[in-house]
């Protein structure tokens, strides 16, 4: 393991008692310099671009991609540079600009963090964004609101960078929600159709629900520490600060709840499949780099807390939720006909892997999967987009045999599928393998063996549905209309570049051979303790008892997939219509979770809201109006009954007792002046008697 000379922070490399546990912490070569000190340019540029696009886009739509693509190219360059610096020397830099100081201990800041984790994200976001943006230039050609699309797209990428760069939880929340808004705009890009705008709303709204957790969790942690700075919180976690200890578990779980929204963990996953309503580049970016990774990133960023102070109590939930997500959403992917939906559910499933890994304490593995997944999932989406672009349908039953029409798309898609299925030596294999190993090592966590089984089965499922997808899309006969043809170069080039990445990015962390990724990520201010595999070569280092079942599951999945869908190319669609009774409707309806949510929202928006509105009009307002009406009524009674009838009023009661009701009406109509006079005298006499008797 190569290590860099300690510069700023303590060198904390100690071999654990058991030999395979490594504490890694900070060793950084770069703590200053233009690249890290000027990250703000990268953060600000997308927003400026978005603003300028809005300003100039109406004169010429081309400003949209001109500005946006330029921005992403810059992001790519800057991100890559930092990543390069990190790989070669390690970077560690943090800068905060105070925007307000409230009271003695509350400081609001904007800033950026450059360390292993964030520079990885800068690189991923920059790279994937740039490629997707290029792709989108072709894909979105002639579409409505072309310029506006790029504005929102820039915003999306920029918001993600703000989130990633956040040195404090407040800024993180800002980026977090801005990502949500940008996704709302992009998913609902074709807002003329209500389905699309509803999908956008759903995404935003689900995220907002999860954000409650993030906000409350942040507040709890920040209050306990007295600062929003993540580094302060993590330091307190390392030092087992008493105040933090009390809230660490709850705070961590709440943060994870926030992450569940962005990273679409079960049962808050419902928005992600619907988000396919947006244009395909949006899906690619969202699934690969900019939105769903945010939750995983957050877990990674706060990992010392989860791993240390919050401990098993918090982490077990992370793992279980992740496992549930990877299995349950993977199953749903089996029954989807919409190619993008398959990919969407596969993303969910893969996110489940990442979260499970982090829950299990496998920090590097989880983030490594994030890293590899970003490339092959972006590729899959762009490939799917390319196919959709060609056949003008999302339904795989309208495709088939596309490998003949679109060879480049086919080839790259196939590579990415295999990578996703975890076939050696493609990118996905290495990361998934590490996750399985990580889960295996998580002995302290309850039910970790079971989770390992789930993850292995998940690998099988993943392989199976990807095989199905490839088979239905690219093999067999073309079932759609018109003549599909290969996408233009601006779209295929990104595919091919991503294809290369999909093959190779896994090689940066091969146990026993080269574990650079582990080191790169370890460049950070706060120590990480995790299980890590060491060895002379990867065959030796690999824990085959875990890795082999995973690989076998993948191969098995592909094999069965080929058997089911590969044989008779003419009837594959027929066979796809095979239904398993109870299970199929359950999967088809996503376990009815969506329906439950709709019912719930309907309940709130309908009866509950109406009840409140009713309360407003018929209870509170009724009291208010009632007082008014009462006063008016009282006025009538006092005026007509007391004031104008004077003493008759009293004497009627008098006479009424004596049974003289016959005279009642006449009494009321007789001369008033004498009633006045009577009242006058009676009033005085009563007062005299009163004051004499009751002194």
């Amino acid at each position, binding site marked *: 393991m190569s290590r860099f000379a300690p510069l700023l922070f303590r060198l904390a490399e100690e071999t654990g008692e058991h030999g395979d546990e490594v504490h890694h912490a900070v060793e950084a070569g770069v703590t200053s310099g233009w690249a890290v000190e000027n990250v703000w340019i990268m953060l600000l540029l997308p927003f400026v671009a978005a603003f300028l696009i809005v300003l100039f886009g109406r004169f010429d739509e081309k400003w949209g991609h001109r500005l946006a693509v330029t921005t992403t190219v810059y992001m790519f360059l800057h991100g890559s540079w930092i990543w390069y610096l990190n790989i070669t020397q390690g970077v560690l830099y943090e800068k905060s600009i105070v925007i307000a100081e409230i*009271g003695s201990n509350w400081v609001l800041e904007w800033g950026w963090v450059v360390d292993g984790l964030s520079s990885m994200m800068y690189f991923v976001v920059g790279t994937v964004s740039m490629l997707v943006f290029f792709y989108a230039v072709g894909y979105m050609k002639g579409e409505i609101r072309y310029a506006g699309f790029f504005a929102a797209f820039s915003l999306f990428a920029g918001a993600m960078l703000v989130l990633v760069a956040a040195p404090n939880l407040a800024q993180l929340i800002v980026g977090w929600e801005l990502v949500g808004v940008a996704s709302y705009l992009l998913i609902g890009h074709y807002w003329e159709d209500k389905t699309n705008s509803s999908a956008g709303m759903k995404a935003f709204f689900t995220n907002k629900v999860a954000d409650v957790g993030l906000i409350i969790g942040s507040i709890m942690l920040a*209050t306990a520490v007295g600062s929003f700075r993540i580094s302060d919180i993590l330091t307190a976690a390392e030092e087992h600060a008493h105040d933090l200890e009390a809230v660490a578990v709850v705070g961590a779980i709440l943060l994870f709840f926030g992450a569940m929204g962005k990273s679409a963990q079960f049962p808050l996953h419902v928005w992600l499949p619907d988000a396919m309503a947006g244009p395909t580049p949006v899906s690619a970016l969202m699934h690969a780099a900019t939105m769903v990774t945010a939750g995983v990133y957050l877990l990674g960023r706060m990992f010392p807390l989860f791993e240390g102070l919050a401990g098993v109590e918090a982490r077990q939930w992370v793992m279980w939720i992740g496992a549930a997500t990877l299995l349950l959403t993977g199953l749903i992917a089996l029954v989807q006909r919409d190619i993008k939906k398959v990919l969407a559910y596969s993303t969910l499933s893969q996110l489940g892997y990442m979260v499970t890994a982090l829950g299990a304490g496998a920090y590097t593995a989880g983030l490594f999967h994030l890293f590899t997944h970003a490339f092959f999932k972006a590729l899959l989406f762009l490939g799917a987009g390319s196919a959709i672009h060609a056949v003008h349908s999302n339904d795989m039953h309208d495709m088939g045999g596309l490998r003949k029409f679109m060879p480049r798309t086919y080839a790259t898609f196939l590579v990415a599928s295999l990578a996703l299925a975890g076939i050696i030596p493609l990118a996905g294999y290495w990361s998934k393998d590490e996750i399985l190993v990580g889960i295996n090592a998580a002995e302290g966590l309850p039910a970790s063996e079971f989770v390992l089984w789930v993850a292995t089965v998940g690998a099988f499922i993943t392989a199976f549905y990807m095989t199905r997808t490839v088979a239905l899309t690219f093999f067999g006969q073309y079932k759609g209309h018109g003549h599909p043809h290969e996408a233009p170069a601006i779209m295929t080039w990104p595919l091919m570049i991503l294809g290369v990445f999909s093959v190779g990015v896994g090689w940066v962390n091969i146990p026993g051979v080269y574990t650079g990724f582990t080191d790169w990520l370890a460049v950070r201010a706060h120590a990480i303790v995790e299980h890590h595999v060491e060895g002379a070569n990867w065959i030796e280092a690999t824990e085959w008892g875990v890795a082999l079942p995973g690989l076998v599951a993948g191969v098995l999945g592909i094999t069965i997939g080929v058997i089911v869908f590969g044989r008779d190319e003419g009837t594959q669609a027929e066979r796809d219509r095979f239904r398993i009774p109870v299970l199929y409707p359950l999967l088809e309806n996503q376990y009815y979770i969506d329906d439950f949510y709709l019912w719930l929202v309907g309940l709130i928006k309908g009866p*509950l809201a109406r009840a409140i509105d009713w309360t407003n009009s018929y209870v509170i307002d009724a009291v208010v109006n009632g007082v008014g009406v009462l006063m008016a009524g009282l006025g009538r009674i006092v005026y007509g009954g007391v004031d104008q009838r004077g003493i008759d009023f009293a004497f009627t009661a008098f006479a009424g007792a004596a049974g003289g009701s016959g005279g009642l009406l006449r009494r009321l109509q007789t001369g008033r002046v004498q009633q006045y006079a009577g009242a006058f005298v009676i009033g005085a006499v009563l007062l005299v008697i009163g004051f004499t008797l009751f002194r």
Partner: protein
Amino acid sequence: MELWTNGAGLSLTVVLPLVGAVIVGLTPRASESLQKVVALLTSLATLAVTVGAALVFEYGQGAGFQLGTDRPWIPGIDATYAVGIDGISLPMLALSAFITVLAIIYSWNHWDEPKNPKAFLLLILVLAAGMNGTFIALDLVLFFIFFEIVLLPMYFMIGIWGDKTPRSVPIFGITMETRLYAALKFFVFTLFGSAFMLLGFLALYFNADPQTFSIPGLIAQAPALGALPFAGWIFAGLALGFAVKVPMWPFHTWLPDAHTAAPTVGSVLLAAILLKLGSYGFIRIAIPVLPEQAKEFAPAIAVLAVIGIIYGSLACLAQTDMKRLIAFSSVGHMGFVMLGIATMTEIGINAAIIGMVAHGVITGLLFFLAGSMHHRYHTREMARLGGNLALMPKMGWILSFTAMASLGLPGLAGFWGEFMALLGAYNPLPGLDAGLFRGAMVTGAIGTVLTAGYLLWMLQKVNLGEPKAEWAGHEFHDVDRYEMTAWLPLLAFTVLLGVYPKLVFGATVPAVEALVQTAFGG
């Protein structure tokens, strides 16, 4: 400069609009452009004075009031003409002067029936004088006067230029024009509250030694006043007056009616400034003068605030009228402000102030938009709108942006108020029931979800989708010059406050710190 040391400068914020009002009143009714110019120039001059005050204001100085004066006014009751500003009132004063200018610009070519620009502008200027005066007054009697002065112009605005459609009053089977119902309700409600507020002021006066109406003077005597056996009742009286104005649940029902019925500019001023008079009163008077009682009442205030948040949001979901929805949203937003105040902490009160400013900017803009849309569609029924983004893209995008700001999107003005109110509620003043406040925080946070819900839902109904068939042949004029001039500053401020909240905190933090230190001893 003399202007700033003898209180003349601050007094100008009241005097200038009044002078403008008199000039407008003296112009012949036909010369509308003259009236507009006069009104605009006066409001601009007032804004300039406010900016001047902000420039000479010493921000570092926490305690104490600046740029003010204290002159005899009614010696018989020891009431003085005492004015001055601190970091708490400065942002509110600036907001008031700022919104007034925009309201007048917007009015340039937007007149609700029966038009009559002369009267309308006159009322705006009188309103401005009242609003500015409330924020600079340092004497309870003076405060009371200004607090009440704003009622009259608003009453007339709603009553004369308001919504003329009939409204049926449920249960009682009465039908009357919305404007009449709303105007009356607005006035009677506020008067009811302020009558008890006045009793509270008097009780403070008589129990002070030496007797005084001066706010700083009373604050100096806070311990003695707090020890009075009936101090709780005094606080209740003050709180009632302010709570009606805020408005806090369950005293809020005048608000949806008044906001909905008022003419556009009326709604804007009502939402942007008038509501703040109540919450400002809490911060300026109720809490520092009777801190112990404020502490006793804080849980109740917090609970009512949270009920307001949830209740207001749910009520929004049931609205079919766009303007009424926006109106109801104020109940929720002011709930956050009150939650912040109820925490009695620096962070909470700062949150309340920035929340007030942000709500003024954002909801003001929303009402401008609702008005302009009504101007074009002649309906506010959301069921009939739709596809606004296609028909009027600029209007639609501004609406979307503002709605996003209103739902508390981070990076925009609305966020800090909500977020910090929750932050404050998590850790209220020592001695307050933290469990209750944390419950309030969680509920409030859930309220943010509902807020997002109704605003997104409104956007979907109004902005998105295909335009309805009934608008097929219509030509719609997108945002015009005057509208843009009035709105751009608001848009800019929405972003600025979100990105750089120090614009407000810079002024408020030292003042709030001093306030909390004095009241609760740190």
